């Protein structure tokens, strides 16, 4: 794909080179007719490109991330803080697991960057079970939703110990094309400041329903929110 993209650039360089050559060697001046033929070809290419790009626009519009207000990303966290799991859309849930546990839960983190949030809700009973719900990470770049492209790794459970791990590396290229500023004057289109860039991100969120009297030990890197109702 990348090598394919080089072709137009190569063509542009070639055309510029050709022009510089013809203007330097004045003897080989381009004849009037040829300049117009050349120019007409250029216009033709532009029109074709416009139509093709118009079709591509329509096609990619379905595939490209949707624009979503940033607040909606945080609605999950707001609901979780209130312990209101039921109001969260099930599409946000990655996994639901149940783990047996003794008297104590240790939470450690091997992730130093984008550490998952952990919410803990105490159940009314001591049934020796932890119900774990994992919610999707999110990533918004300039208000576009790139959450689907975020890599994540579920926490590891081992003998009453939950380890938060660094997810595999995510690389996202945000490519955008902005119409010329001048042309927006009467279309009512707004445009972000040229060159400005904003992103919001959060890793997975883990919601744990734990037995009533479970002792929870955490290390310094982990922040735990206790849900109380």
């Amino acid at each position, binding site marked *: 794909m990348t090598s394919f993209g080089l072709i137009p650039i190569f063509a542009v360089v070639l055309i510029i080179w050709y022009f510089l050559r013809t203007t330097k060697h004045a003897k080989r*001046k381009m*004849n*009037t007719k040829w*300049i117009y033929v050349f120019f007409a070809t250029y216009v033709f290419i532009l029109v074709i490109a416009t139509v093709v790009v118009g079709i591509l626009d329509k096609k990619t519009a379905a595939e490209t991330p949707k624009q979503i207000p940033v607040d909606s990303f945080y609605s999950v966290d707001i609901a979780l803080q209130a312990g209101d799991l039921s109001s969260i859309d099930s599409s946000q849930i990655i996994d639901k697991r149940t783990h047996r546990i003794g008297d104590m839960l240790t939470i450690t983190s091997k992730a130093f960057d984008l550490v998952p949030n952990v919410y803990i809700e105490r159940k009314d009973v001591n049934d020796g079970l932890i119900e774990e719900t994992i919610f999707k990470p999110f990533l918004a770049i300039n208000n576009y939703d790139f959450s689907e492209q975020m890599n994540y790794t579920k926490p590891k459970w081992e003998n009453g110990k939950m380890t938060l791990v660094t997810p595999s590396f995510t690389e996202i290229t945000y490519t955008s094309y902005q119409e010329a500023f001048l042309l927006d004057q009467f279309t009512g289109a707004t445009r972000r400041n040229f060159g400005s860039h904003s992103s919001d991100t959060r890793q997975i969120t883990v919601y744990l329903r734990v037995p009533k009297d479970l002792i929870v030990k955490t290390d310094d890197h982990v922040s735990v929110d206790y849900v109380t109702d």
Partner: protein
Amino acid sequence: MTAIEFNNVTKSYQSGAHSVLNHMNFSIQENVLTGVIGRNGVGKSTLMKLIAGHIKVSSGEVRVFSENPFNSLKVSANTILVDDTMSFSDKLTLQQILKEADRFYANWDARLAKRLFDFFSFHPFAHHQHLSKGKKNTFNAIIGLAAHCPLTIFDEPTTGMDTVVRKDFYRALLKDYIAHPRTILLSSHHLEEIEDLLEDILLVRDGTIPFHGPITDLQDMYVKLVGKEEKVRAHVVERSSFGSQVNGSFIEVLVKNTFTMDEQARLNEEGITIVPVPANDAYVALTSGSKGGIDDVFNSATTD
């Protein structure tokens, strides 16, 4: 009918500076081939540009086809000025330039243009700015001829042309003029080259017109006395001579032709012949004026 009229025309390029044309008055009749003669820098080009409407008068009035030529579309459409400021886009080939000229000039003679173009062996795809000076002027001259404009002006058209081409051009001009009579102005500082061609002469000197009329009238203004030196000298002693040449014991002296019939008879008796002068000699005599010729510079130097 009068083609060109100058009424008290003065032209100076910077206000207050010395004027190039100085209260000039003359008129040129239609369908006359007039030579505009004068030394370099006397205002021939200025005069012609005024007629073509390229520049405007400082004072006075120019009329071409009874219109002020400056900004007149009528004058522009019926006039062509061929000079070295004629320029064409570097994007056009010579062939294309001829085609454009064809569109602009109603009387354009495409056949003549083509034949002259081929005769002077131009390449149709050559570009104007790549031509040598002589070639450029030849090409401009072709346009001037083929345009068949009712008023055709050539300002020093032969600069840079070689002798053969010059002769061919003048011949072409004459033939085309006879076939299509029109008002033609032709300037040159080489009168001897064009004197056979011209009907009238418009002499320009220091922004004024010391002579305007048929070329024969100019020639009649002067004669050459040829005879034994002491006899000739006796006759010209109270006349101003405009140049003399000693050949052994004979001398030729150029003087104003103011001899009466009696005087002419006496000169004949004394063996002095009265010889008509070429227009060029008359022109030189008229324009060198009382300052004398270059010989006088050396003569006075030896007597000092």
